[in-house]
Structure formats: structure tokens, C-alpha cells
């Protein structure tokens, strides 16, 4: 049930912000501080999420095969690989390191 509650809130919230962008008059959110904050918010969230989902299990910090996978994804990004290759590199390297007992 908790999962459905979370899904319901996310569905409504995410659609509402998408629609708001198309409906509010131009200029309403054009203040430079608001624009800058809007650009930086996803940076903060994505950085925190990347770190947490790589270096934690539950509420414990760990370094395991996922760290190697993320490193592979970072290398793929530096080489300007397409999106799917980046994700694929992370998955394959993580699985490989685990298979080797990492």
C-alpha cells in the first residue's frame, strides 16, 4: 500500500509541475535567482542519488562492485559514449567484478 501511496503522490506531483510550466504566464519564473536555483536543484539531487546508490546498502556506507561499475560509466561518459553504452558499461563491469568475487 505504501508503494501505491508513493506512486500516487509522484504521479500527481510530477504531472502538476510539467503542466504548470506550460500554463503559467511567461515571466512568472523568470527571476534570475529562481532560474539558477532550478538549474542547480537537479545537480544536487542527482549527485546525492548517484553517490548513495553506489556507496550504500540500507543506511550503511559500503564500497563494493558497484563502485567499479560507476567508474566504468564515468570512463564511458568521458569517451562521449551513448547513453545506453554508459549504463551497459556499469552493469557489465559490476557483474564482472562480482563474478570474480569482488
Amino acid at each position, binding site marked *: 500500500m505504501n508503494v501505491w501511496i508513493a506512486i500516487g*503522490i509522484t504521479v500527481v*506531483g510530477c504531472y502538476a*509541475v*510539467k503542466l504548470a510550466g*506550460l500554463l503559467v504566464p511567461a515571466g512568472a519564473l523568470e527571476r534570475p535567482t529562481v532560474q539558477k536555483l532550478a538549474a542547480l536543484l537537479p*545537480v544536487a539531487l542527482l549527485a*546525492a542519488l548517484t*553517490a548513495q546508490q553506489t556507496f550504500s546498502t540500507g543506511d550503511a556506507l559500503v564500497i563494493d562492485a558497484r563502485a567499479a561499475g560507476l567508474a566504468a560509466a564515468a570512463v564511458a561518459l568521458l569517451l562521449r559514449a551513448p547513453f545506453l553504452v554508459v549504463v551497459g558499461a*556499469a552493469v557489465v563491469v559490476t557483474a564482472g567484478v562480482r563474478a570474480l568475487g569482488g
Partner: protein
Amino acid sequence: MVMQERPEGAVGRPRAAVVRDALGVGVAVGLSGFAFGVTAAGAGISTLQACVLSLLVFTGASQFALVGALAAGGNPFTAAAGAFFLGTRNAFYGLRLSQLLALPRAVRPLAAHWVIDETTAVALAQPDRKSARLGFTVTGLTLYVLWNLTTLLGALGAEAIGDTGAWGLDAAGPAVFLALLAPMLKTSTERAVAGLALVLGLGLLPVLPAGVPVLVAALAAPAVLWMKGRRP
């Protein structure tokens, strides 16, 4: 997914070129719904729930964030809050798109569902309104169809293969986040925000309830802006 500035003074592009760009983005990113389906299944989300998320939320980063937070044991409200804040960037895409596409009011509630990173990037890269509308529509349609199909296949596939961890599939979520984050790290401001958020996100993880550290880490954005504002 990198924003491109519209070339100055360019005139209309051939429809085929617009469609080709839009299909390229739509297919490449649409296929990564597979990673979402698999990640959702690995997080203990049912196939139906994963499909509902892709059909009705349809903004990848928020979907990954939500299933990740639920898997980590977060309560539904903090989990949804993280997903919601990630989705707020779509409002700012909508602002730019509403001027560019000039959609009739009746179409806007439908078009709003497709206002995401990829459709915005393709539409903004076009030199004129007609191409932008075409690019937006083709990218949106391709991505929506593929993202939902591959979500279903990923969720079913994950059930079939069992232990998603053994296949390294738990690394797909963070890799998607990293791929979305990388093009945003353009200046020292973005890098400072990312660095501070990383420290907050990891440092607070052992001491705060699941889902809350990510929300605190979001404060890195106003904190860095404030510190920059104070510097002469």
C-alpha cells in the same frame, strides 16, 4: 540531452532531418526503460507498479529516484518528495517550450506529459517553430512508446532472471543518474553543488531516516548560490 543554442538566423530545416534527430534521441533513451523495469523489479516494485510509473510519471530520473528510495526503506512521503523535486526542472522546460511551441490551450494538458529532458533538448535545438513542434512530437511519441514497452520487458525479464544483483543490474540506476548529471557540470558552481550534495547525501545517510538525506542534500543548491552571492 545536452541543451543546444538555436543557431542565429537559421531558416527551416528539412522535415526528414528533424525526424531523424528526434528518432535517434527517442530510440536511444526509450530503450533505457529496460534498465528502469529491471531496477524497479530489483527494488521489489511489482510489474504493474513499474508500468504505472512509466505510463503516468514519465520522467526517468524521478522514477529511478522513487524506486531507489522505496528499496532503501524510505517512507512513501520522503520517497515521493525526492522524485517530485527532481521533476520540478520540467516546469522550467515547460516555460521555455510554451513560448517556442505556442501550443493551443486545449493541447497543453496532453503535451505537458511529454515535457522532459529529451523532448526539450530536441525542440530547443530546432531553428523554427514548425521544426520544433515536429521534433517535440516525434521525440515524445517515440520515447513514450518505447519507454513503456521496455519498462514492461525489463520488469518481466528481471522476474525471469531472478537475482538482479548477480547481473550487476543494481548499477543501472546510479549510472543513469551519472549520465544525466555529467552534462550539467559545466562550471565551478555546478561542481561545487554536486560535491557538497555528495558529501551531505553520504554523510547523513547513517544518521537520518531513509530518503531524508537526499532532500537535505538538495539544500546544496541554495547554499552554494548564497555563498557565491556573498563573495564580492
